[in-house]
């Protein structure tokens, strides 16, 4: 006899996803149907319903995860840019030491940009094609590579203008997303 367990990990859904209320409800519903089905021995119907639910749920979960990951990376991106702006606080380090710190931040930013551009797979296809998101992704990707080159070659006098350009790309893309929604 199946034991009712709304948050049982063995259902195939990672425990991390249970943070979201929607995810919790989904698991609860699945478990509920499983329990009913077991009782009435309607395995075929149960499997059909569960499969349909799982497909719908996992799609929703992926989008939510994508959104959360994008937000997380964006926030980290903002924090790094903020930290870059207050390197002026340091009074003891030499300018070359501060350049080394700026260079390390630039590498980290370039990595974050790469992560951000990779995380677009969850965005619906029609959204990507309708408002040319792919162009923004491509532009951001190129800017990330340029940032990496700047850091690699110690061309830190170009850093601020490159970051400004990246900010503009992000802002334009976010504006389009808002208008699309």
């Amino acid at each position, binding site marked *: 006899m199946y034991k009712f367990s709304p948050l049982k990990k063995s259902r195939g859904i990672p425990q991390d996803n249970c943070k979201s209320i929607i995810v919790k409800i989904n698991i609860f519903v699945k478990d509920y149907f499983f329990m009913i089905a077991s009782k009435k021995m309607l395995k075929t119907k149960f499997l059909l319903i569960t499969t349909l639910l799982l497909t719908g749920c996992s799609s929703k979960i992926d989008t939510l995860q994508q959104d959360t990951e994008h937000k997380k990376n964006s926030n980290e991106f903002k924090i790094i840019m*903020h930290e870059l702006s207050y390197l*002026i606080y340091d*009074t*003891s380090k*030499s*300018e*070359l030491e501060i350049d080394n710190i700026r260079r*390390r931040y630039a*590498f980290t930013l370039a990595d974050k940009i790469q992560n951000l551009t990779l995380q677009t797979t969850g965005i619906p296809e029609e959204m990507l094609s309708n408002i040319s998101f792919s162009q923004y992704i491509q532009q951001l990707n190129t800017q990330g590579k340029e940032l990496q080159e700047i850091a690699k070659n110690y061309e830190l*006098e170009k850093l601020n203008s490159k970051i400004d350009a990246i900010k503009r790309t992000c802002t334009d893309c976010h504006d389009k997303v808002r208008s699309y929604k």
Partner: protein
Amino acid sequence: MRFYFKNSALFIIFSSTLCAFNLELKNSETIVNIGGRVELNTFMSSPDGSHNAQIPIDSIEKERHLTMSASSSRLWLKTRVPSKYGVIRSIIETDFNGVKGTETNTNSHNLRLRNAYIQVGNWTIGQTNSAFNAYITTDIILTAINDTFVRQPLIRYGAENRSWRYDISFEQPETTLLDSNAKVITPKDDIIPDIIARILFFEPWGDIAFSAMGRYLNQNRATLSDDTQLQNSDSALAWGLNFSAKLKVFKRNDIRIAYHYGDGMGRYLSYDAYPAGYINNDGKIETQKSFGGHIAYCHWWNKELKSTVALSYSGTKNNSYFKDNDDVNKELVSSQLNLFWLPIQNSLIGIEYAKASRTVESGKKGNIEIVTLMMRYNF
């Protein structure tokens, strides 16, 4: 030849036919950056003194004193040129904290060398900050009372990637010893460089720095403060450890901590507040333990305003010979609270309140309160 101005996306290409002046560089690919800092500091201290080992003892009745100074303004010149060993970078950095000018008329503070070094491949050669210094510093105007800060000539080998860095550094030695007259002497008999190893970790949750130092203290027929010349020689091994960390908490805020401990650490702690050891009248060297630390919390009120509250401490264990001495430092304690404002890019305005005390071996104590207003612009 390209001539860059710091923090600007623009650069001006000069050619000898168009220029009214010549900038002679040894390599046509050399890129020169000129930058600097204009800074005005206003100190109101009560009593008159400074936030270090010079805090006046038993000076409660002395008056306040207001001082203004732009001597912390800086000028630096950096170069960069590609080579078969990687990018060669160099810097000459100065400020105006050299010979102090008179406040009566012109405040003509003299230029002082801060940094002069090159970095090529994994090597750093020249004068710059010691690898023993606390890498993670606190955002305060007056340096922490336990500051481990030395700037000296060195040869350093280092390697790094995005999440860590290590260095091994051979740095200028300088033995500082307290003689029986309670005066610090520098025998100038050093024969081995101070050797420092450092490792840094940069993680998303914060940074960690750890350094270890070994040094060789030596005197060879040194002259004591009363002009007595010793007729023997002696030496001692000394060491020090320095740990500092920044831990990110609550969005952009962070906690910064540092701890240092060593036997014969001497001048590396609290701006030479404590000697590396004691030299008796027979020329025998005894190293002495010193220690210190700080904790600070940095809080961003918004994107432009930031505060730091910091507590710092340093102390030493002097030879019992100085038990009742009024001139030998025993410990320093300080607390600081500030507010910084970033009004425009590359500028900083800060106001800070600091309260510190110094205790000497006899038990006498001196307190100081300083309010500092700092205005800085980097160009």
